[in-house]
């Protein structure tokens, strides 16, 4: 690999992209050569996907240049990207379900001559043979597994003659065996002279697959290193950075009795892929339990399972009822049945306007979501929720024209205050919050941290799913690390380091069994 002398297949110089006031990428420099695999490593929200979307023609950079084979390229649409022989495999597949693989592969192409699927199928077969794919071109997409769909996406790009391939977190949806297969194919493509960029945050994959690694952190380009000359520790440090001191108040937990016990729960998604694998932990009253992990590692399913919204394959969720002193099993119960047991469980879901609140309803009506059944008779009682709404608006300094403003017109921070305010107003014994500060400014974030701390001091068992490791380390008492649906470790937030958590996060299924004691503390 004559990297120093050859002209890179693609080179980015000083590329920046802003969305409003948010800086997604700032001054990124990258290059990939033919016959090379470059990994782009970074946490969630570090700007990896945005950067790749600029190469694929989805976004256009605000500043900087992109060079293809040494010449400046202007890529304004996916079509332009095709013309430069760039192909991107997105995380969300763009396939038509009722079409066969071959039909999807030729979709949108303006090939000359007669439309002839059988000749297309032959070309697909050629590509398969060349790189070692196994796929039946006549198979319909909806009958395929996730990995087969991904294969179709990759073939689609190759069929269009791409020389530069970008894969956005291709292994996130794959089993370890499927990942190995994919890597073998990617290596074969590299040897065939393709330039490959793969986005990932799994360190061992980076080390086993790529030739070089570029690291992004919070939109900043940190640097590129040769894989042969680096190790996990160095990459983790580049990825997570130095610990930032956050001035979040943290009290010592008092009489932390177990409140919620999760025992060996397993859960599969609609495609039958396991999303929670033998998860066990204990949440204690009067402490904040953090959950750290790469997005989509099973956090959502875990919280929804506790809230009674997710069907489990097996396992138990036991609630230590402070009123009765009994243990209630919440599994197989609906949210209403859970409420009827006297379990005061509040849940701030990740999808605020799609689940936690109704965007088109005003603040008062959103206050009622949890409590509208209260009171006798067929009519709603708006007095209480109205008082609550005004109370929350005042206490949490929600910026809104009035309590009768639809919540979708509020800013993200204010929406979140309304949601958290409502969930706390139910005086819960368990409070679950998924990414409660995502997209919020500093002041709103601190409002939320304070609210969570207040609840903790009141003896509530708080479960906090977060993505910013600095925040998790400063706010929580214990941190549970989840990776690919498994608990990969539990650490004491007062003593743990970011690197330690970062390493646990990037572990996968296979390793977690050998790596330490997942449930110990």
């Amino acid at each position, binding site marked *: 690999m004559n990297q120093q002398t050859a002209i890179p297949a693609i080179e980015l110089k000083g590329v920046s992209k802003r969305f409003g006031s948010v800086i997604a990428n700032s001054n990124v420099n990258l290059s990939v050569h033919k016959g090379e695999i470059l990994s782009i490593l970074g946490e969630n929200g570090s700007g990896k996907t945005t950067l790749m979307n600029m190469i694929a023609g989805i976004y256009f950079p605000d500043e900087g240049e992109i060079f293809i084979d040494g010449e400046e390229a202007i890529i304004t649409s*996916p079509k332009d990207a095709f013309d430069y022989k760039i192909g991107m495999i997105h995380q969300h597949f*763009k396939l038509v379900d*009722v079409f066969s693989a071959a039909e999807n592969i030729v979709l*949108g192409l*303006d090939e000359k001559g007669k*439309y002839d699927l059988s000749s297309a199928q032959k070309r697909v077969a050629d590509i398969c043979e060349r790189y070692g794919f196994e796929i039946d071109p006549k198979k*319909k997409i909806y009958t395929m597994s996730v990995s087969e769909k991904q294969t179709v996406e990759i073939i689609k790009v190759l069929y269009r003659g791409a020389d530069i391939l970008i894969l956005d977190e291709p292994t996130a949806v794959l089993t370890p065996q499927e990942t190995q297969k994919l890597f073998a194919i990617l290596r074969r493509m590299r040897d065939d002279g393709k330039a490959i960029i793969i986005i990932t945050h799994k360190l061992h994959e980076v080390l086993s697959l790529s030739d070089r690694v570029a690291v992004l952190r919070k939109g900043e380009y940190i640097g590129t290193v040769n894989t042969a000359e680096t190790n996990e520790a160095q990459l983790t440090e580049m990825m997570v950075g130095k610990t930032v001191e956050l001035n979040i108040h943290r009290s010592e937990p008092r009489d932390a009795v177990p409140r919620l016990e999760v025992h060996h729960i397993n859960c599969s998604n609609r495609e039958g892929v396991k999303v929670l694998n033998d998860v066990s932990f204990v949440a204690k009253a009067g402490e904040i339990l953090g959950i750290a992990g790469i997005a989509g590692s099973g956090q959502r399913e875990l919280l929804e399972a506790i809230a009674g919204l997710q069907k489990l394959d097996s396992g138990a969720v036991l609630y230590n009822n402070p009123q009765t002193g009994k243990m209630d099993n919440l599994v197989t119960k609906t949210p209403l049945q859970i409420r009827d047991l006297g379990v005061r469980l509040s849940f701030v879901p990740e999808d605020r306007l799609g689940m936690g609140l109704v965007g088109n309803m005003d603040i008062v009506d959103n206050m009622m979501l949890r409590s509208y059944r209260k009171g006798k008779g067929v009519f709603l009682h708006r007095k209480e929720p109205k008082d609550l709404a005004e109370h929350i608006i005042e206490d949490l300094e929600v910026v809104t024209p009035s309590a009768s403003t639809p919540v979708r017109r509020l800013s993200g921070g204010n929406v979140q205050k309304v949601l958290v305010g409502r969930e706390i107003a139910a005086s819960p014994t368990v409070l679950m919050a998924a990414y409660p500060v995502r997209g919020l400014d500093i002041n709103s974030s601190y409002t939320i941290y304070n609210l969570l701390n207040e609840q903790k001091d009141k003896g509530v068992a708080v479960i906090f799913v977060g993505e910013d490791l600095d925040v998790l380390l400063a706010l929580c008492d214990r941190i549970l690390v989840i990776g690919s649906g498994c608990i990969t470790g539990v650490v004491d937030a007062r003593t743990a380091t970011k690197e330690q958590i970062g390493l646990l996060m990037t572990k996968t299924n296979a390793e977690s069994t050998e790596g330490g004691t997942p449930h110990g503390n």
Partner: protein
Amino acid sequence: MKDVLVFLCGFIAVAIKQGTPLLFGSTGEILTEKSGNLNLGIPGIMYMGGVSGVIGAFFYEKAMAGQPLNPLLGILIPLVCALLGSALLALIYSFLTITLRANQNVTGLALTTFGVGVGDFFGGSLAKLFGAGGSLSIRNTSTLFRSTLPFAEDWGAVGELLFSYGFLVYVAFVLAFIVSFVLNKTRIGLHLRAVGENPATADAAGINVTRYKYTATVLGGVIAGLGGLYYIMDYAYGTWSDGSFGDRGWLAIALVIFALWRPKTGILGSFLFGALYVLPAHLNFGENRMVQYAVMVLPYVVTIIVLIVISMRKKREHQPPQSLGLPYFREER
């Protein structure tokens, strides 16, 4: 035995004639729905196609003032008028739902109200408006549309079965085959189906979603409009009478479901529906009109059952196009 054969041939011939407007309508609606547009304006468009043809024929006959019509012009003028009329309505629908992203159900129903209104209005008032007096009849034009191949009558029952129709019946057949071919065997059809299934994916693949939707909806409307033209010119002998077109437009929409969005199945379905329409009369249920009406309900009941069964079985090939009824807005994603 021979009597049974003659009876059967006669019955099938009548069923085919009865089913032809439905076939036009359903072929047009299938093409439209494959692009993701649920056009409930099809009944209105069929009316519009019929009445536009009538208007064209009326003025041509009036201009000829009783002299024999030029066969070519006599057919071309109503045909072109019908095409333009139905295309206009389909364009209104397309503009409202595709460009202005209006709700498809509401737009379609408004279009049907409008189209049926235009049809009945001109059908009922044309003579009055342009001073011909009496009820509107364009028999001479109708004769042109009804003319069959000369040897049809010499061939007896077989002749009746195969050659006793005006040319539009054959057009309906051919169009169903063409649409089926285009949908399943051409690149354009592949792209169109992708638009109806998953417009975002089609868009990402560089397919012009808007153009495909417009084209399919307008062409679909034009095909459906021919159903109205056939009905009035051929089936009804050129005589417009209020409400006689009835619920054929809705039957055509039912037929789309019955045929599981396949034009070739639509051919069989249209004959079946047509046969049900004429069955009571042929079986001498004349005395018992209740049975006659009860049989007419069958197409709808059968369609409902088909609808339920496909939703229960969830077989993907039998489902409506996935984005049917939904507007596409790229920036919403």
